[in-house]
């Protein structure tokens, strides 16, 4: 499934994350990640993003994730909301 409609979820508050989804003209998955703890958890956050996109069979999108130290399940929940908003 490809993301067609832009959508977002989350906040810029501490321990939360702001997720934005856009259509990707290249038809691939493009992850743009910034995080206050990128050094410590960059890899782990990437994995959560990929796993959550996979759960929804997303094959094409630009996903912009601005992480302020969210827990994994918060990150997953925010991505999920953004996807559901984009698909609705």
């Amino acid at each position, binding site marked *: 499934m490809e993301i067609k409609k832009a959508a977002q*979820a*989350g*906040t*810029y*508050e*501490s*321990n*939360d994350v702001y997720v934005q989804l856009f259509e990707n003209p290249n038809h691939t998955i493009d992850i743009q990640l910034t995080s*206050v*703890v990128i050094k*410590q*958890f960059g890899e*782990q956050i990437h994995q959560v993003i990929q796993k959550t996109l996979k759960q929804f069979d997303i094959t094409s999108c630009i996903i912009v994730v601005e992480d*302020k*130290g*969210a*827990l*994994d*399940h*918060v990150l997953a*929940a*925010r991505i999920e*909301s953004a996807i559901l908003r984009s698909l609705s």
Partner: protein
Amino acid sequence: MTKLTNFLAQKEKNFYKAQAMVSDNQSVLMFKVNYPSLSKLNGFTMFVFYECIHTLKLEDIDITYSQHGIEGIMISEEDPIVLKQRFVTFENTHPLGRLIDIDVLTKHKMIGRIDINEPLRRCYLCENIAHVCIVNQTHTTVEVQQAFIDRVIDYCKFNKEKTAALAMYCECATTPSFGRVTPYTSGIHSDMDISTFIVSIQSIAPYFNKVSDIDPSLSDKQYFMALRNLGMCMEEAMLKATNNINTHKGFIFLALMLFGAYHKYPNQALQTSIKQLALFLKEDFDLQPDTAGLEWSKKADIKSIRHHALEGFSEIIKTQNTLHKNMKRYEDINDAFASTLLTCMSFVDDTTILKRAGLTTLHTIQQKASTISQDKEKWEAFSKECIAYNISPGGSADVLALLVILRVFFYDKGEEILWK
């Protein structure tokens, strides 16, 4: 919706609301207390919030109470970078600074510590970066909550003003209502709400430090009269702040007797000192009764607040163990206070209940409170029952606040008893 999705959705809603409030050249300041729990509202978080706001001399803050705790929002025209710098300095230097989060949001972005070249916040348990501890879940929620509570207790201990303020916040934050005013409801009271309690707390708390100005070498009688004078000044300040509503009269009496007894005789058993000072209360029983307590003491065989004082608060001090156990037993500190409040309701002959509903209802309430004090499932229904009876256990609530003082002012990390 699960509790978490619900929680996240609410957080998002508040954030968008804040963002919509702000126009160019303005920033929104958002204040939140860092207490890890899905139910963040309790006396400790309220105390930290108001203590920080007060220290920062901020006014006109829009305050909301919810499961997210107490949150404040205000709009400022000041330069966002200067603001953030000021708050970060506060967070880094004030003893409670790490317990509060102050966000500065402009129309276009959230100002972070990075924008002012400040290192990331440190965890309040170890010196690691706070975000790293949170994501790694280095410390259990219970450990972090305990560290929060210990920090607040350390801040208040041996300071009469702070301890009394904390005690009053703990009382008014305690939910369910059982007819009282709480942040969520005015209970049976049509003339006040939580903001009445907040202004009352802030108006009377500073006076408690004045107990230390009374000369302990005065005779018992003179000392007692000085305390009584102070109490009258406090009542006046309270009534002025609340527009003539009695919010804390009973608590002022209890706390002054306790602080006074300890200040006059620091090395004597607390109960003996209280008894000694309380002797001069006996004369009140001969006067024309001007309080519900005195009136009912004449009418029925009840134990009014004065009787408790004459016994050196022995029954109240005994209940200290119940609060102590409850704070260990309940995961949510609010539940520890609610359960203790019910215990207080079971043994206090609460004259605020008597005044509204009479002796039979008082006994029914006492009986019921005693049966369900440890049965959390039944609290909500009992609270509704109290409201249906049109009662509000104000006297029992004052005793709960006194127990918090005993716990905070005189205890060391909740284990060692410092008073005799």
